[in-house]
């Protein structure tokens, strides 16, 4: 892999909340290449959000190094974009701001004039199909619309890496499926590198080009990964079911039931 194509990487990262007595994550190495859609799969409480915070630069690893295009969430004086952006499970919109001004949140402080900021936020809202509710307050939106605003807010800063922390986890199944399809379309349109956290195997298999499993512990580590070779994402297809069985085994720490390409992280 060419170094310029690495958007973000973790080298043997360990993270402890109490200065090293107990580790949540340990010996985690992960490289994200430009244009990939990586699903980070793991049971809840294993440390997926923690891993995302490290990648976002919100937490410093206790051990190991991080690398990539830029590790800080901030930007220089003349920056017009941010290197990384995040979508949260709870949308996390500011209730006192209109939809448009919520999307503009990450643009404030960048080297853009007012009209440029507004135009970029409107463009992001158009991408998620919400331009007609730009002036509404968040409390007047449905759960699915709120998540879309969260996605627009992250996209509008034009990040190299889009980090998504179980963004559709709290939605009803119908809304969830339609947002998955929408995200797939946006990814194909924008070619963003995405790291998508989920504890849902089917969701990972629908969306990703590669699935990384975080399990075990504490401390948790990457117990395996699969590069998906599956043009049609039909949950009833044999390929889909084989991948699902293998991912279930990786999460449970059981031997791989077989299939084509797969690696144990220790062997990479």
């Amino acid at each position, binding site marked *: 892999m060419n170094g310029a194509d690495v958007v973000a990487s973790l080298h043997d990262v360990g993270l402890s909340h109490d200065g090293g007595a107990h580790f949540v994550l340990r010996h985690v190495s992960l490289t994200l290449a430009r244009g990939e859609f990586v699903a980070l799969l793991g049971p809840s409480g294993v440390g997926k959000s923690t891993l995302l915070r490290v990648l976002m630069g919100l937490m410093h690893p206790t051990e190991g190094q991080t690398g990539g295009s830029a590790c800080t*969430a901030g930007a220089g004086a003349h920056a017009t974009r941010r290197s990384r952006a995040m979508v949260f499970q709870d949308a996390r919109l500011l209730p006192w701001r209109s939809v448009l001004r919520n999307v503009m949140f990450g643009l404030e*402080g960048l080297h853009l004039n007012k009209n440029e900021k507004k135009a970029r936020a409107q463009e992001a809202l158009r991408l998620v199909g919400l331009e007609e509710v730009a002036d509404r307050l968040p409390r007047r939106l449905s759960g699915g619309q709120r998540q879309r605003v969260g996605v627009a807010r992250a996209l509008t800063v034009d990040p190299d890496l889009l980090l998504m922390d179980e963004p559709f986890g709290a939605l009803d199944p119908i809304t969830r499926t339609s947002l998955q399809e929408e995200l797939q379309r946006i990814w194909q349109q924008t070619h963003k590198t995405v790291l998508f956290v989920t504890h849902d195997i089917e969701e990972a298999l629908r969306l990703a080009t590669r699935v990384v499993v975080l399990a075990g512990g504490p401390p948790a580590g990457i117990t395996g990964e699969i590069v998906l070779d599956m043009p049609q994402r039909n949950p009833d297809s044999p390929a889909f079911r084989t991948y699902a069985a293998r991912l279930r085994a990786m999460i449970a720490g059981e031997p791989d039931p077989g299939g084509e390409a797969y690696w144990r992280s220790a062997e990479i």
Partner: protein
Amino acid sequence: MSIKLSGSVRLGLGLAGLVLFFGLWEAAVQSGLLPSGMVPAPSSLGPAWLDEVRGGFWQQAILDSLNHYLLGLLIGSVLGAGLGILCGMLGLLDSLLEGIVRLLRPVPGLAWVPFAILWFGLSTAGATFVIAISVFWINFYAAHSAVRGVDPELYELASAFGHGSFVGRLFKIVLPASAPGIMAGLRTGLGQGWMSVVAAELFGVPGIGARMMQASSLLATDVVVVYMLTMAMLYAITDFLFGFVRKWVLRWQP
């Protein structure tokens, strides 16, 4: 069980209660149930008020008190809310000031009067000082707890989108998120300020409080009541006007 009443019905009932109150009061004084030397009859309040207005005392007292009140309110609110916000955001400052706060908090505004006289003399500044102190604590605690109640996940959001600095957090998150609590503190302070006007003017700085003290030393109870009602009216007006400010600031709230 609570019955839901429309706004006009509630207003009507409130007025009826007031009429009943003054009616019973008048009857009690007229019938001799209440000695007229101790309690003025409501019917005597109008003439007493007219006398005060004709002499120019009423207008002057309101102007003087309004001067103390507004300045004291401004200083006390800004300093109280400002320090409350800073302590709410900065754990170090909060810990540093905690002992001092516990020490000074229980001292009522009235207790500062001797120092007000000593430091400022019988002046506007002295009265302003006493009002500012009593307003300060209300705003300090309201702002402090409002800032403490800000969802920490919003700070994470701010950091993720480049607003993790102190100034970024203050303006993008803390001020808007704690505005409801800060506004509630300002509103309580508005009332507390009028209450402390009497205390602030007790020692002779001219104003409504001073005029009340003069009247009571002459046993002119009707004049005392006139100024009590004047103060109630001024409070109602300031609270009413502040309602618009509050509504505008919190226009995003349901």
